[in-house]
């Protein structure tokens, strides 16, 4: 008992320290480039925490997160450009829309297991992209949407420097980490763990598979849409090919994979490493030979996946995390028989 109290005190002290460090960081970092990287780390981590709920905790490999990311982004942009609303309102609408999509789509495709589910999420993202290309009057079609910079405007979330964006991004990141933490220790989290290990066994002990999986999918969609909305507010340009592509889905997934799934710090660690890594390999190797940067990047990824298949967070930690014990994948044979 005393042990857990000191532990808790130590943790809250650490948290306060972390918050102070994070909020003071932009005062030290005057370099706009570094600040931009920090912001990118934050919003990609948010999207990745979103993926982790369905892909990590629930063990359902989604390759369609770009759909939710785009819905968040397009909602924020359209609310501002067409209906003259604050993009913050649009962001909330986008989160709502993404939740609805996840509910509808999830009710259908979460009945599928393993690769069948993965393929249908991939297809869903393609469908969303085609819709974005089709409804030109709302989305701008292939030409995309530009949010012109009109000077400081609080309701439009336009700021002259990157610092306010940094704080917004960090706040969103905190929300994402909190969500991950809540999921991991909630009833839902335990249900998901059971499902992940063996769907049939989970069902036999009375877990409502669909209800739990759909809930996870909705939470996942909300976080990812939030990241998308922030992305357009910050970068001010979207088009269907750059925001709703499988590249975006894979990037989101890789961050969690490299950092560590089902972990409160995994996606953040993944983003902290991968986002600067993409950029640094580009800065250093791009001039050597076209594509060299991507080769180096890929080699590093391969090494990580080979030596730390459960994510770097588990390698860096001395003891395996609480979740790690139940990490072993369930008996695959039985699962595939059941779904066949």
């Amino acid at each position, binding site marked *: 008992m005393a042990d857990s109290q000191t532990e808790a005190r130590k943790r809250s002290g650490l948290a306060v320290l972390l918050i102070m460090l994070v909020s003071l960081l932009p005062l030290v970092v005057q370099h706009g*480039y570094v600040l931009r990287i920090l912001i990118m780390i934050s919003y990609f981590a948010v999207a990745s925490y979103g993926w982790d709920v369905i892909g990590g905790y629930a063990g359902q490999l989604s390759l369609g997160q770009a759909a939710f990311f785009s819905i968040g982004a397009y909602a924020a942009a359209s609310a501002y450009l067409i209906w003259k609303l604050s993009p913050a309102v649009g962001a909330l609408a986008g989160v709502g829309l993404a939740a609805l999509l996840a509910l509808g789509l999830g009710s259908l495709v979460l009945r599928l297991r393993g690769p069948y589910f993965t393929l249908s999420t991939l297809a869903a993202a393609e469908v969303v992209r085609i819709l974005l290309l089709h409804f030109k009057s709302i989305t701008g079609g292939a030409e995309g949407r*530009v949010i012109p910079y009109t000077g400081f405007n609080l309701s439009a979330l336009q700021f002259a420097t990157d610092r306010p964006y940094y704080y917004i991004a960090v706040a969103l990141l905190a929300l994402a980490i909190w969500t991950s933490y809540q999921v991991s220790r909630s009833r839902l989290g335990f249900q998901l763990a059971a499902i992940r290990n063996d769907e049939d066994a989970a069902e036999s002990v009375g877990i409502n598979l669909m209800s739990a999986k759909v809930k996870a999918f909705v939470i996942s969609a909300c976080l990812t849409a939030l990241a998308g909305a922030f992305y357009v507010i910050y970068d001010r340009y979207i088009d269907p090919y750059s925001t709703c592509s499988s590249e975006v889905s894979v990037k989101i997934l890789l961050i969690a994979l490299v950092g560590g799934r089902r972990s409160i710090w995994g996606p953040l660690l993944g983003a902290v490493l991968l986002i600067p890594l993409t950029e640094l390999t580009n800065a250093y190797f791009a001039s050597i030979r076209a594509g060299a940067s991507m080769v180096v990047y890929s080699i590093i990824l391969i090494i990580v996946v080979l030596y730390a298949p459960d994510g770097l967070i588990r390698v860096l930690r001395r003891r395996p995390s609480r979740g790690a014990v139940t990490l072993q994948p369930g008996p695959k044979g039985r699962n595939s028989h059941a779904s066949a």
Partner: protein
Amino acid sequence: MTKKLLSLVLVLTVVALAVPLYASAAVKTVNVGLLATISGDLSEVGNMGANAAKLAVEHINAAGGIKALGGAKINLIIGDTTSDYSQSVLVAQRLVNNNKLSGVLGAGVSGMALAVAPVLERAGVPFLTAAVADNLTQLGYKYMFQFCPKGSQFGNMQAEFLKFLQDKYGLPAKKVAIVFENTAYGQSTAKGIRQLAEKHGFEVVIEESYPKNFTDAAPLVTKVKAAGAQVVFPVSYTNDAALILGTMKAMNYNPVIIGGGAGFIWPEFYKTLGKNAEGVFSVGSWSWDTKNVLGHPESVAAVKAWETKYKTFMPEMAGEMYTAMFILKEAIEQAKSADPKAIRDALAKIKITDGPGAMMQPGVVEFDQYGWNKHVHPTIIQWQNGVVRTVYPVEDTDNKVMWPVK
């Protein structure tokens, strides 16, 4: 233990690589940034642009640098934007932050230009882009200059040229088809073609878009052939262009082809298609053999230097980046300063009518209040004996159309 060591090494590597980025280079020269898609999907266009910009810098520096600044040399800093837009924004930010830039060239892909523009605008660095999207200069950016034709002008020129073929060569065509890749570039070009074709009394029998980098053009070509189109306007990058044209030949369908630039005018097109490319027309932002280029010894030298070095004619994107460097150089001369703000103001009121800076057709560069080169117009080329030759507008060239097209 090994795993831990490895992860530690990885983390340390990232940190170690990051540190020197802070160290800024000594500012003795005039720094010019270039944003190009060196790797990824669009590497072909990016590399042509980067090579041309390097060539231009070589020529400028060899000729004594920037005279108004006591012969200061230009230092070209190339950023590989890859073909990923969010990455390109970061690369732009890196160039701006780590160097004292007097200007930035490039981002010939419209989406990319739209993505990086806010960064350059906020940093106050003049940005010369070769992207063609219509809406680029309608966004109120003060530092962005679009020195090349706009997408909708392409269609205009194609329709005009079709009329010319009809009047001068008796082309009987009435039925036209428009085929375009479903991207910003494809859409805005197609829009222009449709309006103008109808205005000139042609019947657009079919208008089909296709996804970029598709793998089977047969359904598309079948539709176009079935619609009875005598003239086809395709808007594509190289892979798709070659695929569509190859499929047409395979189906023994030989309409007059007036391509929408990009893939239809780059050397790679001929390498892929060989003889099948002969006679194909295309619109383009720039071509190497018009009067305004061949009429000036320095521009001729540029075209020749490219030919010797890269064993092809100087392609569109190369010519554009070469001339962009000279436009910027001219602005620096007139501003008598390396200060980006002063250079921006010089660009806003510049008028170039001579030399490599005026290589864009028709040979005058002057920006309107929105930052668009108001004189510029595209040209029509035809593949003749493995080389693109300008054939239209007639005031730009004395070259003859190869007619009839086989």
